[in-house]
């Protein structure tokens, strides 16, 4: 048997939106709203705020860049000048004042006029410095008289001289020398080499 539904289409039961469809549509709408809303908050809220923040921080940094560049230039200038000062100090430290050394050596040899202890003089003098700042002083000389104790006294006085710190010295040795033109005629000729350490350290 054929049944014909004569109700208007909207009134027909079979054509009404099914509850499950409605539920699905509602749930979908809810999920879409929530996700789009969250997206909107993140995109237009947090991201925009972060971008603004970044722009602000970049602005702050840019405003300081000029001062930083100025400081950098100042530092370059300071380093240039300071390096020259350092160079002066470096080369200055390495120098030995030979006028001071000679004055002190003359004092040792003169020995305040005490000729009984020793009476020495030198035949010549040669001074060489090495790259590390050490120096070799070669001063062959003589002491008056044939008394060998005077040579020892002279060596002792050299060892206690103001310039003797860290110094090494050739050992005492002598050769008797006679001169008919001088009084007394005897003298002891001796070789002498002083090895002075670099300034500020002992020579190895």
């Amino acid at each position: 048997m054929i049944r014909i539904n004569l109700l208007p289409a909207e009134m027909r039961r079979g054509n009404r939106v099914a509850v499950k469809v409605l539920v699905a549509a509602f749930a979908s709408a809810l999920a879409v709203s929530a996700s789009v809303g969250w997206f909107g908050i993140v995109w237009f809220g947090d991201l925009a705020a972060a971008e603004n923040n970044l722009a602000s921080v970049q602005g702050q940094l840019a405003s300081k860049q000029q001062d930083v560049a100025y400081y950098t230039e100042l530092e370059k200038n300071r380093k240039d000048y300071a390096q020259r000062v350092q160079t002066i100090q470096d080369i200055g430290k390495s120098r030995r004042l030979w006028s001071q050394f000679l004055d002190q050596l003359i004092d040792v040899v003169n020995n305040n006029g005490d000729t009984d202890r020793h009476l020495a003089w030198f035949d010549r003098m040669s001074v060489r410095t090495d790259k590390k700042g050490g120096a070799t002083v070669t001063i062959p000389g003589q002491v008056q008289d044939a008394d060998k104790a005077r040579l020892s006294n002279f060596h002792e006085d050299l060892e206690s001289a103001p310039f003797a710190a860290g110094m090494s010295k050739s050992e005492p040795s002598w050769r008797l020398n006679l001169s008919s033109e001088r009084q007394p005629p005897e003298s002891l000729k001796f070789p002498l080499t002083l090895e002075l350490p670099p300034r500020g350290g002992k020579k190895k």
Partner: protein
Amino acid sequence: MAATNQNKQMLIICGVGATVCALAIGGGFYAQGEIETINQKIEGERQAITAAQAKIVKIPAAEKEVVILRENLDQYVKILPDEKKLNDFVRMLNQFELQSGGQGKNLIPKSTGRGGKKRFALIEYSYEMTATLWEMLRLINLIENYERFVNISEFTITTGNKSGDSDDRTRDGDAIHTIRLTMQTYRYNGKATGKEVQIKGYEDLKQSLREEIFKRMQAIHIDKYEHTGKNSRRDIFVDPRMSGDEGIEGMLPLDEQRAILQRYITEAGKLREMLQRVRNEDTTLFERYALEKGLRDGLMELAKQADLDDSKITYAPFRVKWTNEVTGAIEEIAVAFEQRGTKKGETDPYLPAQEIEALVAEMQQECENGFLEEARQRYETVAPQLQVPADDPRYDLAVDAKSLHSKAVTAIDFRKLDLRIQGVVVNRGGSSGVLLNGEVFEEGEYVSEELLVKMVEEEQVWFVFRGLTLVRTM
């Protein structure tokens, strides 16, 4: 059929919803990723700001340092020039030759090639001269104390007149030697890494830092030594023994000279012993009176005799001893004898605190009243008795006295300077100037290494001389 439609509808609705949700969530996570990246950038930028701020905070200190260093640049350049400036070097050597009395024979540059990549380039010269030992010492000392850094790396002394006898190889009685020196000087190799920064308010800053600039300039120094001269010493490159004919030429034989010397040394020893007894607290008043009279007469007699016998001591080693142990000793005993009244006890070699206090007060007054020479003399008269050790309670007073003496000497030296103030321009809003010896100097400018124009006023000009502020009135 209807069920199928419903299922399709649901599928479409859910599908569309899921797609939109997925896109939104994906977009949200993408945005969060972006935010994370931006936050990292912000953190980086903030660190950069902190670093920049730390640098900016240092700008005033850096500006001060640069001003101080730049204002002293002239001083650095003098010590270590950028250019060779060898004409000046040769001129300097000529000047030193004239001052010392030595006679140069040649000056030859040495090629070194050393120090090419170092901060300084080495320039070497070998130099030969003839001079007495004392002339040579003076010359070396002048070279070593020259404002430009010069190092003597090698030298030889060849004795020209070993006997020391008077002939054409002596000058003023001193033997002439041949001296060969190798002198090293340097040129600064460092290239400036940047241009000179323009500092705002540079002049004002310079004004405010002038004391510091001056102090720093004083601190830039290379070791120097003041050679004091011959001081009765003998030439160590001359055989001091007497030659065979010395006795014949009217000079006393060695034994006689030794006997004279020994006699005087013994006499001086006796006088010194009497002085000790005078100082001894156990000595009775009568004994002291007799000793003082004997000492006074003895000193006069010995000094008179020493004057007469002075020419008899000709042997060089004896001359040194004569100077130190006879003439020097007589003077020393005389000074100690004159000062005996200022000492209360033998054990205390220094002035009592009350006397140092009085000395300081008098020196202070004399300095304030302009009697600088008197203040200087007052100190120097008792200087040996003011060498108080640091742990002595009188040390601070002695330091005060020394400080006043130093000021007096500085002021005396300042007074001696040839400073002709020919006019002043006083600028209330800026830097004033003074016309000094025909040259214009602004406030804060150096007239010489030791002299700075501090302030210019209508009636007077303030200078800083060796760290001391002094006024010169018009």
